[in-house]
């Protein structure tokens, strides 16, 4: 595939006796938004953390813009903007102090970084809390600060772990637009979600991750074909491919019976 910016091959990650990743392969090309879709504990966050260089895989490799995330983490990290599922920030700092720290460590140019910070702070409406300790901010505002921190160095690769979870509608929309602009400029986005509508609307390709492996990937039509569910929604495709449809039906049936029993008593 031409212009591949993220390439993971045979990734495994073992925590004690639990295999969080079990031979995961994926690649994301320039201009692509790749959505990792999977149930809780499927390995989405672990994949993103390994790609971001936060943890090392038990085996396998991942490259970012051609740099090995484990062997050459400095160059790989320079290519990445990462937003964690729960914002990981120095909470005693203010957003200004945090961004100063980040821009300095990344060696950015003052004029361009100031212009970028001003634009992003205005877009996400965080100017008013720019000098307030991050610990005092709401979860949504912390998420906005984390997103700005991931974008100030204009990285070619964005790794976003459930980035839309805590955002208000306006910021949600702005982030989606920013992601579109990012890929139009040749960047790549790898993001995780379990919200089907977001994945369906935003992603050019979707990888369904289950049990630490990609069990199916492609655009929605390819996934429908794979599942043999013509005209199905992404949710229906997902349930079919992860074999969770019958399990869900059983659970719902049990719950319904239990609820009616309670009402009858």
């Amino acid at each position, binding site marked *: 595939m031409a212009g591949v910016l993220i390439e993971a091959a045979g990734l495994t990650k073992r925590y004690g006796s639990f295999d969080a990743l079990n031979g995961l392969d994926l690649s994301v090309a320039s201009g692509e938004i790749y959505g990792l879709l999977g149930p809780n504990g499927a390995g989405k966050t672990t994949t993103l953390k390994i790609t971001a260089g936060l*943890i090392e895989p038990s085996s396998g490799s991942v490259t970012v813009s051609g740099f090995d995330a484990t062997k050459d983490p400095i160059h790989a990290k320079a290519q990445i903007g990462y937003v964690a599922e729960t914002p990981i920030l120095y909470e005693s700092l203010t957003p200004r102090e945090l961004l*100063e720290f980040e821009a300095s460590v990344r060696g950015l140019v003052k004029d361009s970084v100031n212009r970028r910070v001003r634009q992003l702070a205005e877009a996400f409406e965080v100017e008013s809390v720019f000098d307030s300790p991050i610990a005092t901010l709401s979860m949504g505002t912390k998420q906005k600060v984390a997103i700005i921190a991931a974008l100030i160095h204009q990285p070619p690769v964005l790794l976003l772990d459930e980035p839309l979870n805590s955002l208000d509608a306006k910021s949600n929309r702005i982030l989606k637009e920013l992601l579109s602009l990012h890929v139009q400029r040749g960047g790549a986005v790898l993001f995780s979600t379990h919200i089907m509508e977001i994945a369906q609307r935003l992603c050019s390709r979707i990888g369904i991750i289950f049990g630490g492996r990609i069990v199916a990937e492609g655009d929605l039509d390819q996934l429908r074909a794979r599942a043999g569910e013509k005209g199905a929604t992404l949710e229906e495709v997902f349930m079919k491919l992860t074999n969770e449809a019958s399990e869900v039906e059983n659970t719902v049936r049990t719950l319904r019976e239990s609820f009616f029993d309670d009402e009858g008593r």
Partner: protein
Amino acid sequence: MKAADAWRLSAVPYSEMAFRSILQNSSNMWWGSFGRGSSDASERQDLVTRALRIARFDKLVVAAFVTVAAGAPFLPQILGASYGVSASVTLSLAASFALILLYGVQTLSSFVTSGPSPVLSTLPLLRNDVSLVNLLSFARTSDYLVAGSVACQVIFVSYLTGSALAGVLMLVAGVVNSALAVGVSLWLSNVFYRSILGSKKGKRGGALRFVLLLAWGVVVIGIGVLFAAAGDLIPLVQGVLASPNTLTGSILSLVYPFSLGISVGSIANGFPSLVGKVALVATICYLLVAFAVSRWSMNSVASFSEGAFSGPGAGRVRDTSVSLRSPVAAYAMKDLRASSANLPSAFLFALPTFETFIILLIRAYLPTLGASTLLVAMTLGGMVSLILPLVLVSSEGNGFDFAKTMPMRMGTVVFSKALIATAVFLPAVAVALLESLLKPFGSPFSVLILAASVLAVAAASLLEVRLFLGFAPSGRATFALQEFARMAAGAGVVLLPALVYVAAYIPTVNHPLAAGAMVGVALVELIGVVGLVRRS
């Protein structure tokens, strides 16, 4: 809700609060997390498990320590000393006050910043019941400590005086002392975190924080002095208290906690002196103050649980410009900012003051600054500086994951932290140089000892940070041993040049040669450690 149910329920928010405080203030715990806020789930799980275990047992260990500390001042009388109990009671109250205060500040930080448990408010409980549960979870922060120290004080006083009345008054004094200690720790935490979260940029807030840090330092050092000099202090205080008609005795009868000590000591004899009667009146006043403080504490706890504590109102900020520095300077600045937001770790900013004071004290009675004096003072000062790398690594917390996402070598982190530790040592060197204007050095070559000390402290700091960031713990006992080994390695680097000086001086009696050798070894240490860090 019944009080017994509320007490049982309060165990849950208390555990959560203690757990959060332990994670927040791990720098002050012997087990430490040492900044390895790890992304690795297995390490994180290890950290959480350890924090939960400590949350359960830490209080018990501290309570045992406070109980021993409260009982220690009575030891001379138990061993046969003939003087009364006033001084022992006074020192016992001072020791338990300071220790409860220290523990309270560590434990109450998360109570003050986020309340005991927001989850409680979502349960179908009456508002008063939620307040009661929160109040009881607050009481749990120091219940063992208070019970242990007060019981110990009452038993010893009853035994030594043979007076039930003295025992009852000791009980009152112990409760007053504990109520004041808990109230002050709550106030200190409250004011400190408000000054950080409410007026971060204000000069007044900064000055207030510095005063609080100095006060905190006085408590920490005061406890050390109290224990180190207890054997000399008791007869000294007792001597003053035994002369009730002196001006000092009269003044002390009004001062806390002497008035409580004098009251307890006098009650067995039926208050024979005027000073004893004045002390009793003062004790009653302190009882009223303790009552008021307790009410304030309860109201504060209620307001925390209702979410009264909040950050600053969002102001209008138009300027979003950021200032850029070199990566090492930026990291050091981040460390200074992050560390100053946590009361126990913020103490490092007050450290140069205390370090300089200690070094000045050592040299106070000497007419000249001889090589041996400088050697001892600077080596001790260097050892004290080595606390800093540990605190700085610990203050990283979970935010370290943010730093890990950046294209940065470990060397940047190591150099920045060592830079701070060395900078904190420099005032002590500067004071020694200034002092030499008044008290000349024994030899002009002594200035080399100062230079070697700075080099050794820089090398030791680099090595310590490198070691603390580089190890992965495995098993609790191994972990504790590793921590000790890392600190010992740093101390060894500070000590080695001093030992080389001694080794070179004894056979040659040549001061310039010994000082030169000391600088040489310190330089080699620094070059070696810099090389080690650069390779990481």
